[in-house]
């Protein structure tokens, strides 16, 4: 078992108010799982992802990685890319490698490997401002893969992109995911887009309205490559929608 989310709850408290956003979340993720977490807006799905990554602490419960409390290599891809505009593509990637690799040459080699893997070669010295949204998110992917994570977490990675670019990046993500030479071992992705979840995931976890509770955990038994025009694909989309509404 790669990661286990045990009884995780989260409540935000201020002097006047107390808002519970997550209520007793329990699930585990195995190697080769591509999990999408879906649910209505405000159900706490992004908060759950931030807790898994370690960016927030749960009010109660815990996240266990391979039987331990310590966090292995986990990487995050953000909706808004989160790139430093004053650093080039290569420098943005090298920066996250500074704590992992002492040697500059080693950092450079790893950055170049993942720039190539996502098809960004030619843009190594470009600044984010010179890139289209699709290219920026490719940098986001390359930066996340460069730490060679065991678990890759993604928070709405396609929702800032135009529809056609998002289509292209989803397929490229699946090409990377299908490549045995590429990290990670598992993916957890948060999305509000049900079609996107059915297209990408082999497992969908559905959260209820706030406070978010798991109301379904489905294995998507659709062969790959999936076709969005396939009636069977739409049966799955309908099924997930019917559980959310």
């Amino acid at each position, binding site marked *: 078992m790669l990661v286990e989310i045990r009884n995780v709850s989260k409540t935000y408290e201020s002097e006047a108010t107390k808002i519970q956003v997550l209520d007793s979340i329990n699930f585990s993720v195995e190697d080769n799982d591509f999990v999408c977490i879906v649910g209505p807006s405000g159900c706490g799905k992004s908060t759950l992802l931030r807790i898994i990554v370690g960016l927030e602490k749960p009010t109660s419960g815990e996240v266990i990685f391979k039987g331990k409390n310590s966090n292995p290599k986990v990487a995050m891809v953000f909706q808004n890319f989160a790139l430093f505009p004053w650093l080039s593509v290569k420098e943005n990637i090298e920066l996250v490698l500074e704590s992992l690799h002492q040697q500059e040459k080693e950092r450079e080699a790893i950055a170049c490997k993942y720039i*190539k*893997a*996502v*098809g960004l*070669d*030619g*843009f190594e*010295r*470009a*600044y984010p*401002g*010179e*890139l*289209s949204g*699709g*290219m920026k998110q490719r940098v986001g992917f390359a930066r996340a893969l460069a730490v060679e994570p065991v678990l890759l977490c993604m928070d709405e990675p396609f929702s800032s992109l*135009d*529809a*056609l*670019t*998002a*289509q*292209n*990046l989803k*397929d*490229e993500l699946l*090409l*990377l995911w299908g*490549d045995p030479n590429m990290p990670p071992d598992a993916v957890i992705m948060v999305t509000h887009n049900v079609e996107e979840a059915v297209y990408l995931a082999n497992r969908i976890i559905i959260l209820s309205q706030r406070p978010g509770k798991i109301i379904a955990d489905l294995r998507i038994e659709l062969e790959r490559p999936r*076709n*969005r*025009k396939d009636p069977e694909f739409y049966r799955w989309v309908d099924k997930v929608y019917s559980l959310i509404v």
Partner: protein
Amino acid sequence: MDMVFPKATISEIIGLLEAVNDAGGIEDAARLAADFDLELDEILPSIDGAELLGFVSVNNGNIELTQDARKLLDAGIRERKKIMRDKVAGVHIIKELKEKLMKSQEHRMSKSETLRFLQKRISTSDIESYFRIIINWARHAGLLHYNSDHEEICLMADV
């Protein structure tokens, strides 16, 4: 000579090809736009771009994938890049730009000179955005490099 150049990124063009492929390799442009909740004029640049690169043929509003498009879609990311390189290298305005760079000192050209070069060929009041699109096509294809600190383009070493 004034020409029209499609204002579409390589990602948008491949996204369009993937959508046509899902529809069985041929799809009506209006239906495709509706599938993406877009207006027809919002996907036209991507259709024009795909046609310019030889990935689709367009007849009576139907967009049909070519063999090259199927080859691209069946390929991995590295192979796609190679196919795209050959296609972009064959685009007339990029060929002309490359030839001009070959004749330029150190195979370099300033951004302002490049803008003038493009302005002579593309009829638009917004040549900056065409510069961005064309340079990004050429960079994606590994044909050119752009240094934004020095605002100059140059040929890639092995081109």
